[in-house]
């Protein structure tokens, strides 16, 4: 069963105020993980693994950044569709992250 892997690419723009920070990156990775396809994020000539939160966090996509999403695999089209929708919806966060903005430190809890 050698099915030719489909490759789908799409440009997206990060529009939430704080950029692709930790929580959005987590949501992105969790969504990407649901697909069999490999997910790559192209930015500034670099390629990042779309299923690695460490990679996406260091990608430094501020508000206004344009990224190219690439999926390759049987469910590439669905993956790109879903991920694009997540980015477009500003990762379902409000303007300043959720609530009072991003938590600066998540050290040990009391």
């Amino acid at each position, binding site marked *: 069963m050698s099915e030719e892997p489909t490759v789908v690419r799409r440009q997206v723009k990060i529009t939430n105020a704080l950029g692709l920070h930790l929580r959005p990156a987590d949501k992105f*990775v969790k969504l990407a993980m649901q697909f069999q396809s490999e997910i790559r994020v192209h930015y500034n000539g670099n390629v990042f693994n779309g299923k690695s939160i460490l990679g996406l966090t260091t990608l*430094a996509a501020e508000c206004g950044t344009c990224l190219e999403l690439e999926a390759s695999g049987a469910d590439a089209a669905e993956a790109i569709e879903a991920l694009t929708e997540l980015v477009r919806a500003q990762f379902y966060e409000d303007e300043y992250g959720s609530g009072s903005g991003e938590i600066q430190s998540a050290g040990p809890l009391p």
Partner: protein
Amino acid sequence: MKLRDCSVHATDVVDRRSSASPRKNQVACNTQWNSGMRPATTSKSESVQPLRKDVQASTGPLSSDSSMEILKGIAVSSGIAIGPVVVFDQKGLKLPALSSTPFDSAFELDRLDRSLEAARIEANQAEAEARSRLGSQYADILMAHASIISDPALRRESRDRIERRQLSAEHAVNEVLESYIARLEKLADPHLAARAADVRDIRDRILFKLFSEEPRLSAVDLKEPALILAHDLAPSEAARLDPKSVPGFATEVGGGSSHTAIVAAALEIPAVVGLGRFLDRARGCRMAIIDGDEGLVILDPDPATQERYRRAARERSARFEVLAGQSDLPAVTPDGTRVELLGNIEFSAEVEACLSRGATGVGLYRTEFLFLNAQTPPTEDEQFSAYTAVVESMKGRPVTIRTLDLGADKLAAFRDAGYLEANPVLGLRSLRLSLREPDLFRTQLWAILRASVRGDVRIMFPLVSNLTELRQAKAELDDVIAELKAQGIPIRENLPVGIMVEVPAAALMADHLAKEVDFFSIGTNDLIQYTLAVDRTNETVAELYSAADPSVLRLITHVIRAAKERGIEVSVCGTMGGDPLYTLLLLGLGIRNLSMPPHQLPEIKRVIRGIPLETAQRVAEEALALDSPQAIISLLQETLRTALPDATPTKASTEPC
């Protein structure tokens, strides 16, 4: 790289004392030791009355120096230590040296996976807790932490470093995450750059998992001798402490029966455990006193308190020297009754302490330490050489080797799936475990039997609770003896076989048990705990735990009588045996063999040489007629005070047996 939050605070004592405003005179890392204090190892087993009175007299602020703070914990190893402190908090992390030889990549890969899994579970728990207590925006951050920990890239890149560059799991994880941290810190966007702190937190979380399975302290090198104040110390960590550089330690958790406590007593490092949370306060303190007799830790003691303790410590040293000088004298009462004083040991190195303090043998050789410090159960050969080392250095004196006295939880560490017991003290432990794990048990019996021809070896089964268990254990022993004989391996003929009497059921059945063994050894610690239904490690009920409880004395009396009727030897090897307060009582009840940590031998010998058997017998008889531990303790204290005005009854180290 500096991960360890370890701060040394020291102050010049002279400066403090002469200053009206001591805090301003702090001299960082200027350690001054009173010359009489340094050999903390030689100032043992004597408690100092004046200190006790002073402490009890004042429960409020103890002096005009408001910075002084007195904390009460559980005394587990007697002695006094004074000095600057080193605080190890929960994140007391420091990477071990790079050259961890021999390198075992499969082992490191396994450690990596286990630490990642443990850290992820912890982050998930923190997330769940945060979600209910702090709201979702906090929880989401922690959820992202868990995602980072399970990021396949982290695992892949770490594995790659372990496999290709032979890095330990710690170094691999650290390097991978440091590279991400460095990239994040370079980002222009301050919001994103701040994520470096998250990754750092995650790195510490994973490293802590790796460290907590290994001795953290092995990596520590103290520039100056210092008291260690920690949340907890693993037995293996405590075992690596050098009394010269760590004259004392104190921990937030832990109880008198912990193996850490035994190790402290063995190393003769004054120690107090179970202090509750105090590290936050201790972090700012410059020096401390650890009073291992009273279970006190005094932070930033005022000059008067320091002086009192220093004087006491000097007196202890002097007194101990005098006692040690008498180690060659026989332990004989003034009216001519001889008592055998033996040592309790864990390591072969302690044989030296036994001999120098005049022990006539090893009454209890705890073998579980061979297992506690190991990644895998020790092989038969490893056990054989450990036992042989002890037996041969005792040069023909009796050595009673106790078979494995481990809980199932300890054994689980060697395996993937552990037993989970709701109540391990009443569970699968000790001899029960040995009988359930014949391979483990037989391996140990092989090693003991092979060592048996090297000296006067005796074998002892712990925690026997009924005759069936004893018979099963003896059957295993007979099988192994037959195997050895079939292979022509020499063993000691008629190897004496005994049991620990430490379960009330065994004490009550002692008359029957006595028919089938060569000796009894009363393990008072467990016997008390099981008789009184008191967990001696639980601070909230610890005061109910008393060796002087009349019920305990009745059981002991019963065991002694059963032994006498069958003509077998009976000894006491629990903490009670090493406490001067109980020496005359046990003597009076008919005990002629006492086994204890070697450092307690000189004091006990002094009591024996000072009190006639007749007095001991009269007091024992009186004590048996009393109905409360308080009344019995008063009687014993009064007798001891009269007979030996300068004797020092200790509540001392509660040493598990």
